[in-house]
């Protein structure tokens, strides 16, 4: 994040002075190259010293009283669009942010070719954004939304931003209602949360959504499914340790060990969203259900609602987001004979489990063209007492985050 500071400052300055027309390179009649970018300079702190709240489970740093001053919300993105003609275009986007590895491969958000044979159809192939929920492929673009960050309870469990493959969108109008239907498929290999240098293979990944737009309203139903192709090395070691236990010592060995298998398991995410973007009122609501095919991560319900009201160039807002287990917390069925093994067996259950809610109060101030300043206060209530979930901890064992945490955040968001 250190290298990001001067870069972000330079780009923030650029946002105030740049005129977008200069970033367009005309290449004849309808062809052009467009170079643009976006970024967020974020500050955040909390009253928790040993637990850092993460933006999503792939986040490394998180927010705590001892986290870096330049917060986990900070990021810088650059995009090049090559418009060849009204049918064909290509887009490449790279984003620098807090993430498991600072490699070019990890920075590459999108790299795709888009083809529009006519007004109804669009096909994209390459690395494309994962469109699951109203803001999933816009989460890096702070300038695009009201909050300092998308609601953690909803988007925190969805660390995947893109996949390699393609999507097809069919759009049409019925009177003044615009409908679009999208289907996508591909594969992905993101870093596994809290495991350095380990990437999990996801293949296939598939899904789709239906969008309905009418005047200032937007409704969406979406689904995404994933199948995992690899096992986690740490979990595999745990599995073999459990399997070695003789039957008379631990009769549940076979059934417990099978619960840590990731290879072949499927995850499904279903969501419904409704947004009203009028003026001065704005509101957004999403509800989701996450199913996990393994035996240790709890299936959850997620939801959030935000309402904002514009007063001149300032838009205050209030939000609530929540995440709760659908079928309670999965448990190790019976105590293991050795304390070390018991702790190792417990850990995956606790690390992935969360049950919490957040009340947010904030404001966005559009004080200058292409620049917005946001302030936000979050009161996070951890309902459970046996999961680490969306937090990172620097302590051993399975220490609990405090029941209530206060998070203070400020961001400067820009596009250029």
């Amino acid at each position: 994040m250190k290298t990001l500071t001067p870069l972000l400052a330079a780009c923030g300055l650029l946002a105030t002075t740049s005129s977008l027309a200069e970033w367009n390179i005309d290449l004849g009649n309808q062809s052009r190259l467009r170079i643009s970018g976006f970024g967020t300079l974020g500050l955040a702190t909390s009253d928790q010293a040993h637990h850092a709240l993460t933006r999503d489970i792939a986040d490394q740093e998180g927010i705590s009283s001892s986290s870096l001053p330049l917060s986990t919300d900070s990021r810088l993105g650059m995009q090049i669009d090559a418009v060849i003609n009204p049918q064909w275009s290509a887009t490449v986007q790279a984003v620098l942010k807090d993430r498991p590895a600072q490699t070019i491969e990890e920075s590459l958000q999108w790299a795709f070719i888009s083809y529009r044979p006519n007004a109804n159809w669009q096909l994209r192939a390459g690395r494309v954004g994962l469109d699951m929920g109203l803001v999933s492929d816009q989460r890096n673009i702070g300038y695009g939304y009201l909050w300092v960050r998308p609601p953690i309870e909803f988007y925190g469990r969805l660390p995947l931003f893109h996949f390699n493959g393609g999507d097809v969108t069919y759009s049409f109008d019925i009177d003044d209602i615009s409908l679009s239907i999208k289907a996508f498929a591909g594969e992905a290999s993101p870093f596994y949360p809290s495991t350095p240098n380990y990437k999990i293979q996801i293949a296939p990944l598939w899904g789709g959504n239906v969008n309905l737009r009418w005047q200032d309203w937007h409704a969406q139903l979406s689904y995404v499914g994933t199948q995992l192709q690899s096992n986690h090395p740490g979990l595999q070691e745990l599995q073999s340790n459990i399997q070695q236990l003789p039957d008379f010592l631990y009769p549940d060995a076979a059934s417990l060990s099978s619960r840590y298998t990731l290879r072949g398991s499927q995850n499904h995410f279903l969501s419904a969203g409704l947004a009203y973007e009028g003026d001065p009122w704005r509101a957004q609501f999403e509800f989701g259900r996450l199913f996990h095919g393994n035996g240790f991560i709890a299936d959850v319900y997620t939801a959030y609602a935000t309402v904002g009201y514009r007063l001149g160039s300032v838009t205050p807002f209030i939000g609530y987001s929540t995440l709760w287990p659908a079928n309670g917390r999965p448990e190790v069925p019976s105590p293991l004979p050795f304390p070390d093994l018991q702790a190792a067996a417990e850990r995956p259950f606790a690390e992935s489990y969360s049950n919490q809610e957040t009340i947010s109060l904030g404001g966005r101030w559009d004080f200058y063209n292409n620049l917005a300043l946001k302030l936000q206060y979050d009161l996070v209530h951890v309902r459970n007492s046996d999961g680490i979930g969306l937090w990172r901890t620097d302590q051993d064992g399975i220490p609990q985050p405090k029941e209530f945490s206060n998070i203070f955040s400020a961001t400067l968001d820009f596009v250029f």
Partner: protein
Amino acid sequence: MHPLAKFLLLLVTLWSPTGVAQSRIAIIVHPESSFTDISRKQVVDIFMGRLLSLTNNRIPLPLDQQGGSPIRERFYEALTGRPLAQINAYWARLMFSGRATPPRMLPDSLSVLQAVSQNRDAIGYVEEDRVTPSVRVLFYLE
């Protein structure tokens, strides 16, 4: 006029939200454009990236004005009823999620006039008093 009345009139002029009366904004196309029949809603949809082609596969080429220019602010305010910041945020979401590319931006009204007079597919907007016979006015925004 009585000096006091003059002063009061000046105050009213300064205090009124629009200040001095502004010229209208003309939506312009090429004199031989085939887009002479398009509606105000279609113009909104074209500039918001929602309408990519019209009947008979005619593809409009919207031309926008400079990022923070007063005319651009007035254009979107009049056309969509939204402040410019909301339009910019809308485009940031569309563009950086890789869904659509915003209209090409030109540095000033003169460039828009020139581009529209040279391209049959172009749709632009300029101040009413800048309109020349080289373009055709579709309608005016107050």
